[in-house]
């Protein structure tokens, strides 16, 4: 089968045994995707937007405490519970398995956010603002959302599109590891791997198939495409 014509199915594998909880992925996502900046008051009200966040879990009692860091981003579920409940089709699954959010179609009912068991959807309660000079560093490849619209991790779809277009121009297939979302690119421990799950040779497919691999809240049947690798649970 000609690799250039194969349908992609994007997925991610995150090695929790490598994750140090440094949150470079969070910062990178903010920079890449024009995420709105919050202030302490909004944060206290629960209004921050972090398309990827690092959840910390503590295990055990002092002094035998173990801290687990888990970067949680949109799991791009195959059977996403957020999709059928949107009354205007503002979120649906595209051909490459991505759960896309269409900003200009969103009416703001927030049903999708309620139905997401991972709580990875973020609503713009106000129009986003960037205090100077942050407004000067916005990424021109990513649209700015308005107030009243839902947003979430897109697996850096702008990077996916750019790489696919470049590959098509050069008449070749997209190489494994060529597309890196901002979070995967910035991880110093190289804990996050992004790739094509339809390609059995890709790194993400091999990691997803490893014995340490599991998925978050798998029992709900959402079929997420983010695989977490950890020794034990």
């Amino acid at each position, binding site marked *: 089968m000609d690799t250039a014509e194969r349908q992609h199915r994007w997925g991610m594998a995150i090695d929790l045994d490598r994750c140090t909880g440094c949150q470079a992925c969070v910062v990178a996502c903010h920079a890449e995707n024009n995420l709105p900046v919050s202030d302490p008051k909004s944060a206290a009200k629960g209004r921050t937007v972090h398309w990827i966040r690092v959840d910390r879990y503590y295990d055990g009692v002092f002094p035998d405490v173990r801290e687990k860091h888990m970067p949680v981003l949109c799991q791009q*579920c195959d059977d*996403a519970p957020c*999709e*059928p409940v*949107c009354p205007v089709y503002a979120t*649906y699954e595209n051909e490459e398995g991505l759960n896309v959010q269409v900003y200009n179609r969103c009416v703001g009912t927030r049903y999708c956010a309620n139905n997401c068991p991972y709580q990875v959807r973020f609503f713009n309660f106000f129009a986003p603002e960037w205090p100077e000079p942050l407004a000067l560093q916005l990424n021109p490849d990513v649209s700015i959302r308005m107030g009243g619209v839902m947003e979430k991790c897109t697996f850096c779809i702008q990077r996916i599109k750019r790489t696919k277009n470049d590959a098509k121009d050069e008449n070749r297939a997209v190489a494994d590891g060529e597309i890196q979302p901002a979070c995967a690119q910035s991880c110093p421990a190289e804990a996050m791997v992004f790739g094509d799950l339809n390609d059995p040779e890709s790194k993400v497919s091999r990691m997803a198939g490893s014995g340490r691999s599991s998925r978050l809240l798998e029992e709900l049947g959402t079929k997420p495409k983010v695989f977490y690798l950890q020794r034990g649970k």
Partner: protein
Amino acid sequence: MSVYLSADFASVEPATKAVRDLKSHGFGLDDLAVYSDEPILFPRGVLDRPRHMSLTAVFGAITLMLVATGFIYFTQHNYPLITGGMPIFSFWATGIITYEFTMFGAILSTFACFLWESGLIRKRDSAPLPRIRPERIHLRVRCNPDQTDAANQLMLRAGASEITRL
């Protein structure tokens, strides 16, 4: 040139007798009309008007049910979008809307049928109306000039308390 008589009755029994007598004397249902300020229940067969409301309601319900199902089927397939692994069209999910539209169809057709059958939206004839007095039953009869006396007699004998010519 029709003559309209209005007979005044105190209760439903004499009114029923009058209607029966008039009908047996050759007056049709279209010639008779009963006016009152509250619904009068005549026994079966006395003053039954043709009624199609149940049938209209069912027809309206089925029509909108088919329209709703067809509409949803067409629109969902026109621009199919995968959401959560759910099928594009399934009777489970669309059944609710189909049910509501079925009821909506029944409601609208019942109301429309009421407006038509009661005559509220039909063109009115210029026949005179009796002035309705509370707690009385008024029977209006349309008769030819030569039938006037006969009708008069029948209604008086049935128990009318007053007959006026409109």
